[in-house]
């Protein structure tokens, strides 16, 4: 299997152990989804994945994840820009805190956001005066997903922004370009791949999110039930076929996204090189 001989020892055992562990813990369990699906008749499978309730849940899942990721692209870019380009008090603390959504258990994020945005919460009580209801509506799901997806956009854009060479900007400025022209024509072309990758990473993460959404969404079928919640509801009724069919659909979409992200990263690393 080796392409090139090496004097380092342990190739066989390290690769063997890795593949064995990967197969037992990840591949075997995941293949159960497809095995289970294979035992279903096509019409039965199709009826489950295209039922009204399932379609409503896909619409909600992808719709809210899309909106939340778009909002994150905008504000995440701004945060990354401020962190890299500007010096201000508290910058280091904010930089550390950006990763909070990675480190904070999703259930904790869920109850905290719900408490803030209910009609009596710190934020919700002001929004309700303007007739904006957040908790137990799709808007609440968007809020939870913004929280979850934020670090993906900030970190992806931040690392590229830090590597950006200032010389091009100076050259453009000395040739008479103004700041807006420099931003649009010199900086942004280098950042696009990172922005799109950040969006895709946030989107991929948020379509599977469960813990933070379950508290704030209210979980009403057809209205505020995201796809992972629907899977959960099917499992609780011991309807494994129903749960599996929807899980397979979600999984295939996630794989497609993962493939796209890898392609994007390959593309952007080639551009930078």
């Amino acid at each position, binding site marked *: 299997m*080796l392409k090139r001989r*090496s004097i380092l020892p342990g190739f066989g055992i390290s690769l063997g152990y890795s593949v064995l562990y990967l197969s037992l813990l990840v591949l075997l369990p995941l293949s159960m989804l497809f095995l289970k699906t294979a035992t279903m008749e096509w019409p039965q499978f199709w009826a489950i994945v295209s039922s009204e309730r399932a379609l409503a849940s896909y619409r909600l899942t992808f719709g809210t994840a899309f909106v939340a990721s778009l909002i994150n692209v905008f504000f995440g870019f701004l945060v990354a820009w401020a962190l890299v380009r*500007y010096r201000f008090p508290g910058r280091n603390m904010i930089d550390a805190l950006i990763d909070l959504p990675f480190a904070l*258990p999703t259930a904790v994020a869920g109850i905290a956001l719900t*408490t*803030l945005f209910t009609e009596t*919460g710190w934020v919700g009580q002001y929004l309700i005066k303007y007739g904006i209801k957040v908790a137990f509506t799709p808007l609440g799901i968007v809020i939870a997903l913004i929280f979850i997806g934020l670090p993906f956009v900030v970190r992806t854009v931040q690392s590229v922004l830090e590597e950006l060479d200032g010389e091009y900007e100076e050259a*453009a400025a000395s040739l008479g370009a103004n700041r807006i022209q420099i931003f649009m024509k010199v900086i942004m072309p280098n950042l696009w791949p990172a922005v799109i990758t950040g969006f895709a990473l946030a989107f991929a993460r948020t379509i599977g999110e469960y813990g933070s959404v379950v*508290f704030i969404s209210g979980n009403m079928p057809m209205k505020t039930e995201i796809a992972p919640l629907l899977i959960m509801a099917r499992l609780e009724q011991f309807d494994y076929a129903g749960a599996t069919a929807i899980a397979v659909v*979600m999984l295939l979409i996630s794989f497609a996204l993962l493939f796209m992200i890898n392609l994007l990263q390959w593309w952007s690393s080639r551009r930078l090189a």
Partner: protein
Amino acid sequence: MENSINTGGSGKRLSRSQTEPFAIRWLLISVAFVFLALFLFLPLCAIFAQAFEKGFGTYIEAIKDPDTLQSIKLTLIAACVSLPLNLLFGISASWAIAKFDFYGKSMLLALIDLPFAVSPVVAGMVFVLLFGINGMFGEWLQAHDLKVIFAVPGIILATMFVTFPFIARELIPLMQGQGSEEEEAALVLGAGGIKTFFKITLPNIKWGLLYGMILCNARAMGEFGAVSVVSGHIRGETNTLPLQVEILYNEYNFAAAFALASLLTLLALVTLCIKKALEWKASLNSHPL
């Protein structure tokens, strides 16, 4: 995929042509501040405010509850089992991938990322399909009076699954960047494989290793969706700390729910501090994570 590392605060000065006028600069900073205040600071404050709303006595009471203590114990067990196993995998996978050139390497790399692409709910349910009553090994397990789903082993398996890539993802790029000249030199000079690993490789990767471990640990202790599917929510038996938070919250016992949530929040904050310290340490040692 889960985390990208930045070295933060390189502190290089920007020339005049590279920055915006003062007013625009502060407008942008203010907008970023307001956004982060709303989505990061406020939830943090809310957790601690709610936790101590009914006083310190209630807080301690909530944590001393036997069911809660049991859930803390289970959370620790799940983390203590999944962390070393994923560590072993992380080291062996990164050794194979970073030090050798073999066919199917990029395939293996992509497969390691798989658990990140899977919704936590799906991660939990695949184990139900394997070990549940109607699952593949369900009958066999029942015949031998073994329980995996709605029991501790299921919780550990689900935790292992979701934390699977963390350490490997951290070590692979690190070791790839370091190459293998130092190890080769040690071997040529007569050191054995084990000795080379402990004297050369391990000191080189120790900060990255720690980094991966604290991230892995944070996720292991905080995992909710996957564990929720396999746990069955049996009080005092199969509830981890995050699940206990959910139960208390759904019973409108908000003070207790937030008291436990504040413990998990402290864990998250400590994780972030160690992470930041490791990034700083790594930048000093010029071994960027």
